[in-house]
Each structure stands twice: as structure tokens, then as C-alpha cells.
């Protein structure tokens, strides 16, 4: 796990959360910009997941590898699932779903770092 990349992931998730929350409050549907941000975030998550997997396979492991793997798998699939579920609703509530997904992603980034560092 690269710490700077984790920091970037947290920043991007929070940015997406704030953007979506503002959108929901303004009764807007999710915009193209938000989807682009979500795509960049997911790409960065995948890079981090590949790095983490390579490290684990190479022998650098967190204390609780099973829990770590569970969180890693969750964070990889969460954002696409949230975007899919949120976009099906073309109203402010789609933005609400994106906000919840982004906040959850930020929490998962934090938990992954905690577990990785023991």
C-alpha cells in the first residue's frame, strides 16, 4: 500500500462526496464531471489494489490478511455498484446515492490504511 496514493484516494473520495452532496441539495442529477471523477477514483483504487496484492503476494502482509483482503475487494466493487445504482435514478436522489458511496469509500480507504499498518 502506497501511503501517498491512499491520501489521494481519500481526497478524491471526499471531493466526490462533497460534489454529490451539493448536487443533491441543489436538486440536480449527477453530472458528467462527477462520473469522470468517479472513474478517475476507481482507476486509482485499482492501482492501489494491484500494488497491495503484489505486496501481499511478495510477503509484505498486514496482521490480518483476511480482513484486509475483504476490505480491498469491497472498495474495488463499491464505487461501480454505487454509480450503477445511483444513475438509475435521474433525480437528486441519484446524487444522494453517490454521496453515500463516496463517503463509504473514504471510510474504507481509512480502514485499509489502519489494517495495513496494524
Amino acid at each position: 500500500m502506497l501511503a501517498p496514493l491512499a491520501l489521494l484516494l481519500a481526497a478524491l473520495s471526499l471531493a466526490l462526496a462533497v460534489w454529490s452532496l451539493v448536487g443533491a441539495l441543489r436538486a440536480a442529477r449527477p453530472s458528467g464531471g462527477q462520473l469522470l471523477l468517479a472513474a478517475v477514483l476507481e482507476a486509482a483504487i485499482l492501482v492501489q489494489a494491484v500494488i497491495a496484492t503484489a505486496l501481499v503476494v511478495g510477503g509484505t502482509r498486514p496482521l490480518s490478511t483476511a480482513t484486509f483482503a475483504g476490505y480491498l475487494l469491497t472498495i474495488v466493487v463499491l464505487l461501480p455498484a454505487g454509480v450503477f445504482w445511483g444513475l438509475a435514478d435521474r433525480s437528486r436522489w441519484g446524487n444522494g446515492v453517490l454521496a453515500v458511496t463516496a463517503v463509504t469509500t473514504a471510510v474504507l480507504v481509512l480502514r485499509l490504511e489502519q489494517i495495513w499498518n496494524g
Partner: protein
Amino acid sequence: MRPALRSGPGRLLVAVYAVFALSASARALVQIATDFSAAPLAYLLSALAAAVYVVATVALVRSSERSRRVALVSVTVELVGVLTVGLLSVEDPVAFPDATVWSGFGAGYGYVPLVLPVLGLWWLRSQRPRRAV
């Protein structure tokens, strides 16, 4: 019935319920698989909480009249559960050496477990089917 249970605010509710279904299930699974004897009561309650969240999520997504009743029951159980476990964990911490999702009224999860069933009941109530006259 129209699939109204999962549209609008319902869509957001389903998203939050799905997150809790996943995290509560994972937590219960790890607790029970790794060290069940350490806190059997807390871990069984974790499993109960997980089951309740899963049932509520599925019922909201299905959005039929029958599943609305299922959702109503599971969300009510959830509210009773979070209040009971919350109270017990504060009154008698010895019985809860390890945390469940509902410990301390869901303090470990930003009190979302306490707010969620209230929102759920409000949503289900506002979506009651109207009888044709």
C-alpha cells in the same frame, strides 16, 4: 404495486442499507469464525443485526406489496434491536466485551444504525398503498 419503494429517497435508503448489510455481515462472519467463545452474546447479536439488514435491503429492492410488509417487520426489529442493544451495552458493558453494530446505539458507525430504522419506518409509512375507492 409500483416499484416506488426503491425510487427517490428509497434509492438512497437502499444504498445505505446495502452498505450496512455488507459491513454487518462481514463483521459477524469474522467475529464468529475467529473467536466465537470470547463474546458469544455480542457475536450472535452481530449476526442478527446482519440478517436484519440483509432482509431489509432485499425487501426494499424487491419493492412488492409483500416485501413492503417484510421490510416493515425487519426495520421494526432493527429499531428495537438498536435501542435494546444500545441500552444494554451502556448499562452492562461486561456482557458486551466486544462491539456489535448496535453497541452504544451505533456510536461506532456515526449513530447511523440509530437513525436508519427511523428513516426506514418513515419511508415505508409514506409509501403505504392507497386503497381504490
